[in-house]
């Protein structure tokens, strides 16, 4: 009888310990499986640097003991920036590789293709690598969350700057013909308000499958625009910058944030051809001399040297990958031993003033049950031929 009660008591005491550890497919005592797709090949392959940086970050995390004692198994597939391929790879990650959640899948069209599937399956589509406004939709798509400041807000900030500095501008827009491009254009138009119709003299689009955008640039010059809003992914943005300079068209150029990398966009375009470009930034740029002694950037450089030595340090995608790695690291730390998909989303939606130190000062991560936009602040910067120079103040679109 006593032995029986002893056994019962020990089981009862042990039960809470076991009850605290909760796992969904992809998590166990020793491992957390995270899935990802990135365009390592194809027209957007410049972004592949992000996937490689995240992989390097998790190598560092594992070497330092993992997260709460568990190693991270980062499984990443190439989708070539092609939505059907992304659908296939994400399906493989969720159903065959049984990952706990899918993280930083890159591309607006690629994530759009999986949006309904991930939410129907209740698998987190976390910190997607796109700034389209539609990811901040906690009510209808509670399993999808973005990370970077959204495109429409960025467009509005450019509009405000144009109205303040060049109120009689004639604006020409080059945009990628998909949801990402259209999101930026909407932001700009909303920011210009009633003046949009009068100020925008040309709106020219391009398809990802096209080899160059040279003819579109010639078209924009012919429209008489003196302000150019360049909404293009790295390869096409570089072509646009170069062509505009080569044909002698010198508008005030606003470059969208997704292509501000000095290493993969401005250098191929030509550094002297990129002088005067204005963009909105939220992370510290590796080429900016003012961060030379910044401890956060120094730590980043040490990380790159050890875990990704043959990378081009002037490529801002390596800072981006490091920053998102740190963010999800925090989410997993907060999740502790409750590694269910529901808890991952809950933790991701409860980050209060979390500071990622490679982001610009005063920019913090803030999320809540109704606010699925982790980053909402940017600061304008201008390229001087060698590096990006910040100016003005940090502009925040934080609602709450």
């Amino acid at each position: 009888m006593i032995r029986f009660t002893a056994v019962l008591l020990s089981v009862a005491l042990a039960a809470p310990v076991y009850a605290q550890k909760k796992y969904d497919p992809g998590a166990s005592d020793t491992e957390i499986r995270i899935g990802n797709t990135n365009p390592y090949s194809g027209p957007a392959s410049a972004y592949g640097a992000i996937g490689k940086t995240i992989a390097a970050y998790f190598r560092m995390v594992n070497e330092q003991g993992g997260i709460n004692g568990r190693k991270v198994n980062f499984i990443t597939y190439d989708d070539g920036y092609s939505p059907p391929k992304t659908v296939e790879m994400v399906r493989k990650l969720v159903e065959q590789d049984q990952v706990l959640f899918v993280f930083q899948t890159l591309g607006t069209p690629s994530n759009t293709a999986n949006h309904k599937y991930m939410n129907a399956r209740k698998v987190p589509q976390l910190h997607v690598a796109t700034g389209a406004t539609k990811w901040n939709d906690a009510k209808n798509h509670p399993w999808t969350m973005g990370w970077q400041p959204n495109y429409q807000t960025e467009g509005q900030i450019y509009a405000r700057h144009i109205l303040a500095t060049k109120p009689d501008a004639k604006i020409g827009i080059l945009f990628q013909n998909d949801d990402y491009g259209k999101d930026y254009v909407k932001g700009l138009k909303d920011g210009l308000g009633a003046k949009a119709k009068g100020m925008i003299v040309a709106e020219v689009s391009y398809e990802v499958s096209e080899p160059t955008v040279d003819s579109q640039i010639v078209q924009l010059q012919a429209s008489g625009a003196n302000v150019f809003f360049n909404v293009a992914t790295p390869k096409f943005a570089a072509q646009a910058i170069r062509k505009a300079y080569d044909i002698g068209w010198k508008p005030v150029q606003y470059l969208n944030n997704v292509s501000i990398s000095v290493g993969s966009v401005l250098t191929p375009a030509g550094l002297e051809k990129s002088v005067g470009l204005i963009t909105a930034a939220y992370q510290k740029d590796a080429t900016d001399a003012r961060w030379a002694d910044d401890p956060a950037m120094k730590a980043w450089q040490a990380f790159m040297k050890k875990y990704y030595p043959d990378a081009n340090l002037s490529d801002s995608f390596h800072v981006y990958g490091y920053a998102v790695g740190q963010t999800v690291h925090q989410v997993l730390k907060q999740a502790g031993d409750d590694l269910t998909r529901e808890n991952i989303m809950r933790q991701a939606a409860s980050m209060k003033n979390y500071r990622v130190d490679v982001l610009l000062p005063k920019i913090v991560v803030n999320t809540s049950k109704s606010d699925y936009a982790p980053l909402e602040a940017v600061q304008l910067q201008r390229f001087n031929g060698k590096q990006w120079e910040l100016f003005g103040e940090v502009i925040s679109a934080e609602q709450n």
Partner: protein
Amino acid sequence: MKKTGTDPIFLILVLLAALAIALPFVASNYRTFQFTLVMVYAIALLGLNILTGYNGQISLGHGAFYAMGAYCAAILMDKLGVPYWATVPVAGAVCLVAGFLFGLPALRLEGLYLALATFALGVAMPQLLKYKALDGWTGGVQGIVILKPEAPAFFPNAGIPLNADQWLYFFTLAITVVMFVIGWNLLRGRVGRALIAIRDHPIAAEAMGVNNALYKSAAFGVSAMYTGIAGALGAIAVQFVAPDSFNIFLSILLLVGIVIGGLASISGALYGALFIQFVPNLADEVSKAAPWAIFGILMIVFVYLMPTGVAGALRLLLARRARKRTMPPIPQEEIP
């Protein structure tokens, strides 16, 4: 030759049916999904085989008919709210007409010239689907996302819990069986003989009273119908259509499928489908850097070892065994 026991073909079909029905209950959802796609490809390959294998008209553009069927289903389901099972016959009908209309002017073209014309269709389709004016219907480069159909309430009520993947598998299986039976009937009768006659000796066929023009266009139409139905089922299974899913590579892959599977053979469609569904995945596991090189090597190996396709090789094997059984024993010595 004495027939011992039941017809072996019948036994094989029964075994196949049993395996097919048992599969979704023993395999994972992902495998079930992959086998659903195998059946989809099998229907498409049977369609292409009717045209190329049995009728000798080369088509490098069947991906376009697959795309037409897929978009038909997607647009009907997404924009017009049509239930998924109704989209399949509509896709088939649309592609039947489209195929027939394409087949009519193609009558003037033979061999390589026909191949080029169909290639033009295959290569133009993704661009046509991205055409800005049709963006409202086709969803442009972003494509259309379809919601997966659930099993009808009849099954859980009857005590058989079928999830969406399993239900879709059985739905596709039923349609595959129907299409294969129709194809088998068509090809073993007068129509089949006429098609083969046109392939081998068009002038002799004409002289025998076969209306070449009608049969050739009809072959195009029927072939397109099969591929369109496959496209619709494929769209429902993958739940996503985008112009980039249906590029020229798909057309070429379908041609690879029928050659590897076996030209002018119905079972060849199944072997070819298994090849084009699983071998690229296999190649990806062997080499991450050059999966298509591995795929190419495997293709060459298959073509070298089995020049008449898997179906042809099996036929030869069975014929050789049958001959051995019926041949009289060779006398050891001749009595002078």
